[in-house]
């Protein structure tokens, strides 16, 4: 049963990855990265149960955290950077 979930999550990760490659806009990529991160959290939690080592949950927690902070960081650098840097990707 955990294997089903693991496989499904891996598939979703792949899909998010494809979206991150395709773009087309910067924000699509950010969104895809965020979704990828969410799925990593799920994957780690499920794999932890699959292997009977729930200590993995600490790592999942760190991931959830890092995922949030890095999305904010990416945005901070691109939404609020001077206009000459942001026009290029429109």
């Amino acid at each position, binding site marked *: 049963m955990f294997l089903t979930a693991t496989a499904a999550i891996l598939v979703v990760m792949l899909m998010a990855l494809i979206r991150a490659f395709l773009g087309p806009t910067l924000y699509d990529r950010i969104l895809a990265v965020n979704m990828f991160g969410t799925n990593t959290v799920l994957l780690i939690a499920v794999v932890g149960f699959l292997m009977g080592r729930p200590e993995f949950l600490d*790592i999942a927690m760190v991931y959830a955290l890092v995922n949030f902070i890095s999305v904010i960081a990416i945005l901070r650098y691109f939404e609020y950077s001077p206009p000459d840097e942001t026009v290029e990707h429109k």
Partner: protein
Amino acid sequence: MTAVAVVLMRDLFAVVMLTGIYSLLSASFFVVFDAVDVAFTEAAVGAGISTLLMLSTLTLTGRYAKESTQKPWLALAIVTVTGALLIYGTLDMPTIGSASAPIHQHVAPRYLNDSMQEIAVPNVVTSVLASYRGYDTLGESFVIFTAGIGVLALLMVLQRRRASDVDAHGPMHQHLILRIVAKILIPLILLFALYVQFHGDYGPGGGFQAGVIFAAAIILYSMLFGLSAARQTISQPLIFALSAVGVLLYGGVGVACMLLGGNYLDYDALAEDPVAGQHLGILLVELGVGITVASVMIIIFFTFNGRSLSERGRRR
């Protein structure tokens, strides 16, 4: 696969994000191979802090890679050859988990079997890092400390103007939702970092990871409330002092061991009972590592950002 794409992309920003994904992926591999501590570090350091720092670098250098005039065929050839050799090397490696693998016959059995009696710390990785391999870890803390000093030396010289003139308020201060959510989260993140710090003995975690998480919380704060606010909270001299204190704490524990009649970093001497001594030693040493890592990360982030802000101010 992701790595290939990283090399192919010209847009440096996309590269940064893909590197983030890459380290997420590798962390998942570590989880699968049951290397919890490594995965933890990769999660915190690879996916988190290095992405943040690369982003700050990008704001300094600009987003697009310069078209290189000479074709990097030579480099490509060397990389290919090296890669091929490495893959060839792995053919000789024992299958994963096989009992006859050399790593299982050298020191690992001693670590795995005896560490419970000698150190009584359930997480073997922690006892190996902080006790058996105490010197290596001490060296690593010094490397981080030196890296911090190096970055400072490079960037401080160039820094002419105080960043605080430029950003009075954090650029994201106006962002209502982010502000309130961050206010709720920051205390919890800080406490989680300290939890990771002090539970390195039992679960995955320890000084390096804790330091990084702690720094991440501070960085989140400074992104939302502005660099000058963050600088007021945590004054520069204080962090400088702390980064040194961390290394000194580590070294000091070693010296204390010697004074108490043991070898350098031989924690048995710290208390009557060798096991209690080991415990105390590891705790202090990990604390030293945590403090150093956290403060150096914060220093690097502040310096990078202060610099990009003052650049921006000059351009205006």
